[in-house]
């Protein structure tokens, strides 16, 4: 049984101008201990997917499809049951640790807060667990008193405190939404290493959400590429990033400046146009207006995710690119 199973997840938001479909049929399965990544540009729905799993969306947002965590239907749980699940079984860390942390509480208090809510451990055990978690994330309590407030820490230290908060409760799944985007690259490397080491030790599954193709390449063993509320390509990261079957993913790679070690540079191949505004459910390929390979079929029928060569590698495209093949 998968740890997390998402099938045909839709998210509709009613607005005065009509109902907007923000997630349009997301399928994703995560086994215990899996490390997955969701990658896409702003507005593609990657954060909304995370918030849907945590059921942290406003009431007027309507979720459809199936969302199952360890056999429990997340769409059917009531608020108290969700409260017991969040943090305890599914942990989440966010991009901006300054807004995610409470400015008027010490970090020690905040790390222990979840344990208090669990109500299973006594005061001494909670304290020991808090200090352990701080040590594990590299905030040695000898140097960083649990009595410090968030503003007394640097950005990287705050993100470490966030990770300690999540870690202290030993969740089965950690959802990390752009956890290193606000950090400097050298700090980013430390935080990624830390999350990977902890997940490796504890067997915690990871769902990593990022816009950064390098971060996903480093941490995710399987990747889901999102565009305009849909998954357009999915599979083992090694295969997906080698074959780049969907023209959107190929376009993203072509638009990147080459790695600074490689000296080649020329005009970057930008993807023309912009991401479409959210609207009703897709009747055609959402990427077609920006795609050089699009034809009448792409503009009239929505492509389903179809298997490609490697196991579990699938792309939603009528004209997928082959390995090493250039734009036709």
């Amino acid at each position, binding site marked *: 049984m998968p740890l997390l199973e998402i099938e045909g997840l839709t998210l509709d938001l009613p607005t005065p101008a009509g109902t907007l479909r923000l997630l349009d049929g997301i399928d994703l399965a995560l*086994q*215990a*201990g*899996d*490390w997955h990544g969701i990658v896409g*540009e*702003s507005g593609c729905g990657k954060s909304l997917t995370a918030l849907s799993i945590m059921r942290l969306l406003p009431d007027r947002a309507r979720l459809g499809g199936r969302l199952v965590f360890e056999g429990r239907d997340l769409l059917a749980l009531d608020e108290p049951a969700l409260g017991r699940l969040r943090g305890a079984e599914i942990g989440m860390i966010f991009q901006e640790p300054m807004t995610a942390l409470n400015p008027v509480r010490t970090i020690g208090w905040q790390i222990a807060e979840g344990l208090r809510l669990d109500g299973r451990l006594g005061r001494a055990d909670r304290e020991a667990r808090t200090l352990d978690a701080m040590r594990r994330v590299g905030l040695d309590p000898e140097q960083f008193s649990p009595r410090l407030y968030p503003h007394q820490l640097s*950005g990287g230290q705050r993100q470490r405190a966030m990770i300690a908060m999540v870690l202290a409760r030993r969740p089965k799944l950690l959802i990390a939404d752009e956890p290193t985007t606000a950090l*400097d*690259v*050298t700090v*980013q*490397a430390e935080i*990624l*290493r830390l999350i*990977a080491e902890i997940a*490796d030790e504890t*067997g915690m*599954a990871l769902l990593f959400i990022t*816009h*950064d*193709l*390098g*971060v*996903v*390449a*480093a*941490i995710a*063993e399987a990747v889901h590429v999102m565009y305009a509320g849909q998954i357009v390509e999915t599979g083992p*990261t*090694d295969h997906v*990033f080698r074959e780049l079957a969907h023209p959107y993913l190929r*376009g*993203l*790679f072509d*638009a*990147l*400046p*080459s*790695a*600074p*070690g490689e*000296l080649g*540079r020329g*005009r*970057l*191949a*930008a*993807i023309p146009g*912009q*991401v479409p505004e959210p609207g009703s459910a897709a009747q055609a390929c959402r990427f077609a207006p920006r795609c050089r390979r699009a034809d009448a079929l792409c503009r009239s029928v929505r492509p389903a995710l179809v298997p490609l060569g490697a196991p579990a590698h699938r792309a939603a495209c009528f004209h997928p690119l082959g390995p090493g093949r250039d734009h036709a």
Partner: protein
Amino acid sequence: MPDPACLLELDDVRRLYRLPRRRLLGPAPRRVAVDGVTLSLGAGETLGIVGESGSGKSTLGRLAVGLERPDSGTVRFAGADLWTTGRRGKRKLRQDAQMVFQDPYGSLDPRQKIARIVAEPLGLLRLTHTEAAERTIEALAEVGLGTEALDRYPHEFSGGQRQRIAIARALITRPALLVADEPVSALDVSVQAQVLNLLAELQRRHGLALLFISHDLAVVAHLADRIAVMQAGKLVEEGPREQVLSAPSHPYTRNLLAAVLPPDPARARARLGLVRRRPA
């Protein structure tokens, strides 16, 4: 001595910021944002400044266009000291050195139409209405926007288009120097590529000198002829692009290069030294 071939010269420039007082009558603590930086930029050249947050790279950009005054050292533009030159020199500087900022949402006045936003720097030039209107249309065309943009407001444009508008505004006085401070950091990869291509194209077409400031080494490496690396207010390394990238001399530069994650799973994992002991 001023070098006539150099458009912009910074000579041992220092800039301090006063921090809030700790005690009512105590001295205000200071922080050195830029600490003795010397560099020069020739006409038509692209110099990339790379550094992490707090390294002083933005302050350096602001010093270069005279938005901040150095506490010591000199900033010379086209041979003249920015801060001893008279009013006429200041006016000339405002035309000849322009700036583009990171946030395409914050840098355009939401209550003004694009025509007014882009034409604003023309106040320096004493043009007739017709000339100003022609210049505005020309500047927008340079960045790939048509006349239909003139009567619209910033909120009607995407992030990439707004950055184009900011570039049009900067170029309307036909400057010799453009300082771009993190101009693509707020943009998605596909749009970032459009703006980088545009900057490279404009730079070539007009022989602009470009001071390109970014935390992203890959982006700096793509555009710059020379790269300068800043750390804690100091310039720790400066040299031709190829040399800085393939034979970095300072350990900090090597750290920065090593922290860049390529979109290639095997190499990215190797960079981080990730080995999974317990495969799923």
